């Protein structure tokens, strides 16, 4: 009888790489439902275009440039496309979305050697590429639930963060925070629904696809830093109710813009984030600080994408210097 002989271990955990990818995709479905509800057909067109073009770009590059067997079935291109779409306004023309996909998959992922070898988060590079190349298109945000059946002609308005930036933190008292929880706010199409994004987070934690370290350290840092900023401002102005105001300000920072989407789904990208839990916490704190700094003092109202990309650049350094807790040195 022929027996197979191979070194131990002889059993394997049930999780595969593509299952990880598809789990993240599943986790993003509630947020997708929210964006379909608020942004209607535009959200559908942008997201599907983004997914399709990412997959096609990967396929074409693997088939005709690299001449290898295409691996689009592993779900990573679909996930990149989905995340890129989530980071775009729902009225963005199709051709711009396609350019973003080429930047994401072609330049950021495949040029560096494909899955596992890219330094930066592909979807975020795609978004930032478009933000710099097409600033007008990329900063007009459809008003939620105003025009569900219109696409590029949708009625647009400002996001909360840009209003905050223009009008200062006094504006905080006018924000209806429950709108932020359900997603009734302007912004990139996938970033608006806080509750939906948190449901996905719970699912990913339950399936053990990601650990809590990166999202929690980012969110905690942003909250604490923003709270301190809000409090400092109010105390210097001798206003009453300073604590409540600072709390609201910090909560708005947490629930608006791309912070939840970035912290839960983008910063946790396996390939571009540190591998040890200590490294993850350092990376998360870095993203949190950079986000608040850019939002508060930078040229853009939103800083999550830049913050994550900057910390992506530090990931190899963190991996090199931050070691896990070794056995016997506790």
């Amino acid at each position, binding site marked *: 009888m022929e027996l197979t*002989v191979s070194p*131990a271990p*002889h059993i394997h955990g049930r999780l595969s790489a593509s299952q990880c990818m598809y789990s993240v995709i599943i986790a993003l479905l509630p947020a997708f439902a929210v964006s379909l509800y608020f942004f209607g057909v535009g959200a559908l067109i942008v997201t599907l275009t983004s997914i399709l073009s990412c997959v096609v770009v990967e396929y074409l590059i693997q088939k005709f440039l690299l001449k290898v067997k295409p691996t689009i079935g592993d779900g990573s291109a679909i996930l990149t496309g989905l995340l890129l779409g989530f980071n775009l306004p729902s009225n963005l023309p199709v051709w711009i979305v396609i350019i973003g996909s080429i930047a994401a998959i072609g330049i950021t992922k495949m040029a560096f050697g494909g899955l596992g070898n890219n330094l930066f988060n592909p979807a975020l590079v795609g978004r930032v590429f478009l933000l710099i190349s097409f600033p007008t298109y990329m900063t007009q945000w459809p008003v939620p639930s105003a025009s569900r059946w219109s696409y590029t002609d949708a009625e647009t308005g400002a996001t909360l963060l840009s209003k905050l930036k223009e009008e200062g933190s006094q504006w905080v008292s006018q924000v209806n925070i429950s709108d932020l929880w359900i997603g009734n706010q302007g912004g990139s199409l996938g970033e608006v629904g806080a509750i939906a994004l948190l449901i996905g987070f719970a699912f990913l934690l339950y399936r053990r696809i990601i650990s809590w370290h990166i999202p929690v350290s980012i969110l905690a840092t942003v909250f604490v830093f923003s709270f301190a900023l809000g409090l400092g401002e109010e105390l210097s102005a001798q206003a009453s109710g300073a604590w409540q105001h600072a709390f609201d300000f910090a909560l708005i920072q947490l629930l608006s813009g791309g912070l939840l989407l970035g912290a839960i789904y983008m910063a946790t990208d396996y390939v571009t984030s540190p*591998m040890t839990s200590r490294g993850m916490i350092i990376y998360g704190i870095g993203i949190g600080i950079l986000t608040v700094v850019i939002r508060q003092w930078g040229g853009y109202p939103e800083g999550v994408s830049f913050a994550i990309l900057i910390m992506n650049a530090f990931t190899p350094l963190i991996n090199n210097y931050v070691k896990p807790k070794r*056995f*016997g040195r*506790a």
Partner: protein
Amino acid sequence: MLKTFRIGGIHPNEHKLTAHCPVTPVAVPRQVAIMLNQHIGAPANCIVKKGDTVKVGTLIAEAGGFVSANIHSPVSGTVSKVDKAANAFGQYGTTIIIDTEGDEWEESIDRSPELKEEITLTSQEIIKKIAEAGIVGLGGATFPTHVKLMPPKEFKPTVLIVNATECEPYLTDDHALMLESPDQILVGCRILMKAINVEQAYIGIENNKPDAIALLQQHATRYPGITIVPLRTRYPQGGEKQLIDAILHKQVANGALPVSTGAIVQNVGTAFAVYEAVQKNKPLVDRVVTVTGDHIAKPGNYRIRLGMSMHELIDMAGGLPDDCAKVILGGPMMGKAVSNIDSPISKGCSGIVILDEKHAHRGTIEPCIRCGKCVSACPMGLEPFLLAKLSQNHLFDRAERELITSCLECGCCSYSCPSNRPILDYIRVGKNAVNRIIRSRKQS
């Protein structure tokens, strides 16, 4: 909150198919084959020759050095051959073949079933008796037990830990033994305590064996100094360092001996063998082996004479299933795949696991996605992905600095890799190379 070790670990599907199978004695085989190198250390020296008649318990090979063990005949009969023969992995070594005639035991062995609780021997006498009986670590490590009971002088043992975790999936031989012979194990534990002169012993049992925990707790009240410690089920809890960490909350420093924490760890099967050797004068001639697998007809926990052929035992358990594709000696995490099932069962064999075609092969290797699952699974706090890569690129200096030599080879990294990367295979290669470099450095 139940105790467990503090770094890494996994919880594979337990597959304890034979958890409720009592220990079943198996008929004496017609022929046995005894390998002289079935323990860690120097091979034993054969002291019989073709034509000699032996009884059960007759010394047939003497320890070949300090770290080595005696070997006794597991059957009565005639030595038919002393020759080189292949073991389960195809490696050749000197083997004594004995043809069985009847079942006659050495007169000195007490075969009565009565429990003998009173320990009359001194520490020195106990250790001598254990050495004479040829007892080695029965969890699979096969390190000679008497050597472990005599740690270097600078270390003073303060506590005995008995490893009854059985953290490997599928295996249940220790579990069945605990349910069958709780008192013998506890007396064996008292003997070991006396041998190393300590007043405290802990028996660590994972909480997937609640019946064994309850039974031993109930019996342990009669034996002073023995505490049963239920542990949260987690692999590799049976690793010596992990078990000390789980029970004593102390981590063995890198490169130090486990006894530096004051603990001496012995397997529960070893404790039972010690009872039999010291109280009943019975050398190590049999053991409990789990034969299991998803498609085997009669999986169970069998008490067999050592030297019995694996094939014969598998036949007793219903024979090899048609879809059998892999036979593992030991558990599926650290056991070795067998190429030759006609080889004999040796002292360290805790189980035979039979996998079907579907489970015998590894998945397709995909690119590392740097998910870090190997890092969080590593119970030694290493970075398996990095060690594998360094080994692959022959960067052994860096691998040594990254502590490749403290790898346990538990397999948690390969198990948890979503890309099916053979992480541990690479690490083994690198670890061997680094150990070789360290040895040559010491020599020069």
